[in-house]
């Protein structure tokens, strides 16, 4: 019998708020963090979901004296602090950090690599600040990193290597990332429209998110979500183009459901990836349809938060758990008209729902995909 592993606490820092409840309230009102921002000098502004730096500093200064942190590190510290205050760090506590680019903005105009751009240095700095005793683990698996980080925590705890884990995920908006996605002509010309007929690309976003994962289920009525199954299967098709068959996502979902030992009709809600590029959303629709999940209510959070890269999977998992706790499905913002060859049951307005089983998915460059199944306990 494999050990049961639970998510019992979480927090997030996004343009919509610096804690979960402010984020949830903003989502209920349909607010989006995406707006036009001037990110690259001498270029037109881009639609992106960006945290106001002044507000970030203001929040940070309330809680922290030490100013020797980058903008991204401040976001990480703010998201993790409330969890560390509530749950004790022991010799058997894992610290897992998920990111794609970390402090990449430090690289601008440098002749050699600054220490801060190494992802392990970033993780160690955060770990040292809070006094973690084990060596940090960095998951850097493109846009599935955030979902995979939950799976890594679950698997390492089940294998008996740790008793509990703090998992954080974060990426910030940088000229590096924006110019790169723009060179792919992948950036949308307005607030993105996942799965919609008129979708024309992504919005980049930034956020940090943190969850606490443990063997101990929460007592006295507080929430627990059991991590039932996970998988991350490669498409083996193309390093930047989504698969046309959805093979990798299909297999990831299938394996995660097998491990969870539940049937597809049991899933109450899918928190999908939905980047709003033509090919990604089409690929997802094919994979969901092959899994016969086309009637399960589904959303993408990208029109609220943009695509927060290594943070997106963890942030969206948190919002989906918050959805389950509040018995409310949140609409897939900006979706109007079916724009995929296989129709999906895309949520169009706030609606009450009993949510017990959640499927969370993600896909990314390198042909990677990931899926986890969560159960509200």
């Amino acid at each position: 019998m494999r050990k049961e592993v639970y998510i019992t606490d979480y927090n997030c820092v996004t343009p919509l708020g610096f804690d979960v409840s402010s984020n949830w309230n903003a989502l209920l009102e349909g607010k989006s963090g995406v707006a036009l921002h001037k990110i690259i000098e001498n270029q037109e502004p881009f639609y992106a979901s960006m945290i106001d730096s002044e507000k970030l500093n203001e929040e940070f200064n309330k809680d922290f004296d030490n100013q020797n942190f980058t903008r991204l590190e401040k976001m990480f510290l703010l998201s993790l602090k409330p969890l560390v205050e509530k749950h004790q760090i022991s010799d058997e506590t894992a610290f897992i950090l998920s990111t794609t680019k970390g402090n990449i903005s430090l690289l601008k105009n440098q002749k050699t690599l600054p220490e801060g751009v190494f992802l392990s240095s970033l993780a160690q700095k955060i770990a040292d600040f809070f006094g973690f005793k084990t060596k940090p683990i960095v998951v850097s698996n493109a846009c599935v990193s955030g979902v995979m980080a939950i799976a890594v925590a679950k698997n390492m705890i089940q294998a008996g290597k740790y008793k509990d884990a703090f998992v954080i995920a974060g990426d910030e908006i940088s000229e590096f990332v924006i110019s790169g996605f723009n060179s792919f002509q992948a950036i949308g010309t307005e607030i993105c429209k996942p799965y919609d007929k008129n979708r024309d690309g992504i919005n980049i976003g930034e956020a940090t998110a943190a969850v606490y994962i443990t063997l101990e289920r929460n007592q006295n009525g507080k929430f627990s979500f059991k991590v039932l199954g996970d998988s991350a299967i490669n498409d083996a098709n193309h390093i930047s183009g989504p698969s046309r068959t959805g093979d990798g996502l299909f297999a990831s979902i299938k394996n995660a459901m097998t491990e969870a030992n539940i049937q597809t009709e049991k899933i109450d809600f899918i928190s999908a990836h939905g980047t709003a590029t033509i090919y990604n959303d089409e690929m997802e629709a094919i994979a969901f349809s092959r899994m016969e999940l086309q009637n399960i209510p589904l959303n993408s959070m990208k029109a609220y938060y943009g695509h927060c890269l290594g943070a997106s999977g963890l942030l969206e998992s948190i919002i989906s758990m918050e959805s389950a706790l509040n018995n409310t499905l949140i609409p897939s913002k900006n979706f109007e008209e079916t724009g995929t060859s296989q129709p999906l049951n895309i949520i169009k307005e706030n609606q009450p729902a009993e949510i017990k089983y959640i499927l969370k998915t993600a896909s990314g460059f390198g042909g990677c995909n990931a899926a986890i199944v969560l159960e509200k306990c």
Partner: protein
Amino acid sequence: MKMMKKTAICTIENSKIVLNNNIIFEIPTENFSDFAKEVYKSLALNYPKFHKMDNLSKLAFLASEMILKDEDHSRTALVFANRSSSLDTDFKYQESINSQENYFPSPAIFVYTLPNICVGEISIKHKMQTENAFFVLDEFDEQFLNDYSEQILQSGKADKVLCGWVELYQESYNAFVYLLTL
């Protein structure tokens, strides 16, 4: 629980490839790109996509080729890690956007600014639609990679795991790639 076995090991460093303790290729060059080109020619790899890869992918690809060969790997997972992530290519990409006069961001370079792309390249070559993960650690930690691989094997998500440390920044590189089974 069954014990895990290491069935093949390939190392690449100092312009030398060693497979299961046998030197299979060696050439006196300081330059990784030249080294990779010579390996490709001498082993007749015949895979044109190789030339488009960045150096980290070339390193991971070559070490994996030695072990995977033409066998069936439809149930072999990939678990890789390194220290410098994709910073070798990140640095080159950053140079292409540093100045406004010389602003030429290229999608062909940008796509390699993620460390897991090398895992994607190996998956594509061997049609491996299997579990994969990429970690960034401050130093090679075989115990961690083995622990992570072992739970993949024990859970039945794969029959084998190709595990590897693939570290590269500019001319400094080393690969230690090995195959694990139960």
